[in-house]
């Protein structure tokens, strides 16, 4: 179906159900319960899950398939974001041109950087991409302030021309990004007993784009082109003795992943019309590497899971403070309660980076295939044991 094999179609269906029902299962705890803090089903975070999912899927097409480790992909996300905000400022508040143009701009940007960086491989390639991204970041935050808004970031303003919508007269409010009048920030809420679910327009637009992005990724993975990319990773030299020039293949993969990053950047500004320079910093590039590896390099759903996990940590785990800890352990005797809080304190709240660092180390040491690799290993072991028992 849709040109996919049965398994791939089921995988796409799984992701479809996952993103469609996310507002429901991301809020597993009833409102007001002690664990409501762990609910993640609010629009901003859900948007982030899918947008960074798109970013990571694209990154995985380069890193997972060809093995080229780019430390500069955040630059494409940033370039896409800037292009997107400019579209919202100059053209129309409708998000479609913003998303399309940001993808194209990131694509052009990645052709240039990819063409130069791919002249080298291994860590030399990584350093070249890192250097380009750091240059983009440094310039965007300073010299390019007229174009990028500098360190404050680029925002929409009352006086923007918006030639298709007509400019605002200075009074009133800046229009919110919308899809033919349907504002991205619009939500419907549903109460079921104590549970509360929020269905947000922006989220479903992003989720729809994620599905397309995921579908395209499956097609690429299963295509002759995808196989060539895997061959690049496996044995670059041999590929050229087989009559294939590896460089156009890697460049194509680089540009595709750059366009995915630009698409993610475009969606980000469609959800929230601000583009900040630090989006391009090398740590932001590092983050997508971590997402991909945490989830499982070269697997289809791994990057999406990795992106979700990291964003969950950043937004939920970081908000646990001592008061909450005391509430949770209130049932224990005082001494033990305080002891538990003291033990856990360094790892939550503002210490979430520490937990993240430790988690990476554990995943890399014990689960080289990432979470998906680990899970499928577990599944295989259980399955095989069962079949042996029969």
């Amino acid at each position, binding site marked *: 179906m849709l040109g996919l094999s049965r398994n791939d179609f089921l995988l796409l269906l799984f992701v479809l159900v996952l993103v469609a029902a996310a507002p429901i299962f991301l809020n597993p705890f009833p409102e007001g319960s002690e664990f409501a803090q762990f609910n993640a089903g609010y629009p901003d975070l859900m948007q982030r899950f899918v947008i960074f999912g798109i970013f990571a899927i694209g990154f995985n097409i380069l890193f997972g398939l060809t093995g080229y480790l780019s430390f500069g992909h955040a630059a494409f996300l940033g370039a896409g974001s800037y292009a997107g905000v400019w579209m919202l400022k100059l053209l129309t508040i409708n998000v479609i041109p913003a998303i399309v143009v940001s993808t194209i701009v990131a694509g052009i940007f990645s052709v240039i950087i990819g063409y*130069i960086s791919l002249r080298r491989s291994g860590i030399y390639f990584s350093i070249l991409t890192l*250097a*380009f991204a*750091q240059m983009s970041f440094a*310039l965007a935050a300073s010299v390019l302030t007229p174009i990028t808004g500098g360190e404050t970031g680029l925002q929409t303003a009352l006086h923007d021309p918006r030639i298709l919508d007509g400019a605002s007269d200075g009074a009133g409010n800046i229009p919110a990004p919308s899809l033919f009048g349907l504002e991205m920030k619009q939500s419907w809420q549903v109460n079921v007993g104590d549970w509360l679910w929020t269905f947000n327009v922006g989220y479903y637009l992003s989720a729809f784009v994620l599905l397309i992005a995921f579908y395209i990724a499956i097609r690429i993975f299963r295509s002759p082109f995808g196989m060539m990319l895997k061959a690049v990773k496996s044995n670059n030299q041999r590929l050229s003795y087989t009559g294939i020039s590896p460089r156009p293949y890697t460049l194509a993969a680089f540009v595709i992943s750059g366009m995915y990053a630009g698409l993610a950047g475009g969606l980000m500004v469609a959800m929230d019309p601000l583009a900040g320079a630090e989006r391009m910093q090398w740590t932001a590039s590092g983050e997508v590497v971590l997402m991909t590896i945490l989830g499982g390099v070269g697997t289809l759903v791994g990057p999406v899971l990795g992106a979700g996990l990291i964003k969950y940590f950043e937004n939920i785990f970081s908000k646990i403070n001592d008061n909450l800890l005391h509430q949770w352990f209130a049932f224990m005797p005082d001494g033990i309660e305080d002891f538990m809080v003291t033990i856990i304190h360094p790892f939550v709240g503002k210490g979430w980076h*520490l937990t993240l660092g430790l988690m990476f180390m554990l995943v890399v040491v014990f689960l080289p295939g990432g979470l998906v690799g680990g899970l499928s290993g577990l599944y295989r072991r259980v399955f095989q044991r069962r079949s042996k028992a029969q």
Partner: protein
Amino acid sequence: MELSAFLLQVLNGLDKGSAYALIALGLTLIFGTLGVVNFAHGALFMIGAFCAVTLQKILTHSFITLDETKTDFLGKPLKVKTPYVEEWFGQVAGQAIIDWAVPLAILFAIPVMLLIGFAMERGLIKHFYKRPHADQILVTFGLAIVLQEIIKAYFGANQIPVPAPEAFIGSLDFGTLIGFDPGVIIYPYWRVVYFIFAMIIIAAVFAFLQFTTFGMVVRAGMADRETVGLLGIDIDKRFTIMFGIAAAVAGLAGVMYTPINPPNYHMGMDFLVISFVVVVVGGMGSLGGAVLAGFILGILESFASMREVIEFIPGINQVVIYLAAIVILLARPRGLLGRKGVMES
């Protein structure tokens, strides 16, 4: 451009280059011997700096007496802190000891850094010799985050001033020594100390590798690990020691750097990216390349920050290192002094 302005920036570059070179030296040593890409190396530099902070804290560890004649900000009797060191050795000697905290921290940092290095290698890095470079980068990157978060939890996020000894405060009028007007080429004493210190460490590392049997075995191991292993030499143990030495070099670079820039928890990450660029520009695994590239990039960075240059090309000071890296890597694929085939796919 005046000659004096030129010389001034060369001096500044030497100084910055010293720090780059020392960090890159350890980084490339670890890569050359163990084949490991260590993203936690910047963290070692940072920990070294915090060795100086810790020693300063120990030395200024105080007991509190209440001074009834003065009041604190709440109108209560002022708490006066007296360091134990002053109590034990008398005020003058005690203050002198505190004053010399940074040089003393060298002695403190060497064993600490060696131990940290050994522990890191035995506990973590050695399990990654056979793993892909991406895994090494990730696990050491994770370790770097963990280390810097621990430091932040203890020392806070703000910078902590660690002054140089009184004797080194002030600056040398270098210009007058070579016939310029006074006040034209000025160079702080501590930066002179830092440069000399860096040269000594670099020379010591080279001499150690060049003239000792240990060093010879390690160099042979860098060239061909398996063959040396076949000779029945326990190369692993030596590599552990090399890791410790690389950690100590980074740590000492950090200790001595504290009076130049007050340390904070993310200084390691700040230096990490640049030192990687330095190593790659110098050629992965090339010790001489790392030192050379460190100084070249340091001096380039200094030139790019001159007013005349920035006015000519705005923003060049922000990007010059990366620009240089791109140009060098495209012109000389394996860096300045790199060997063929190292770290390519």
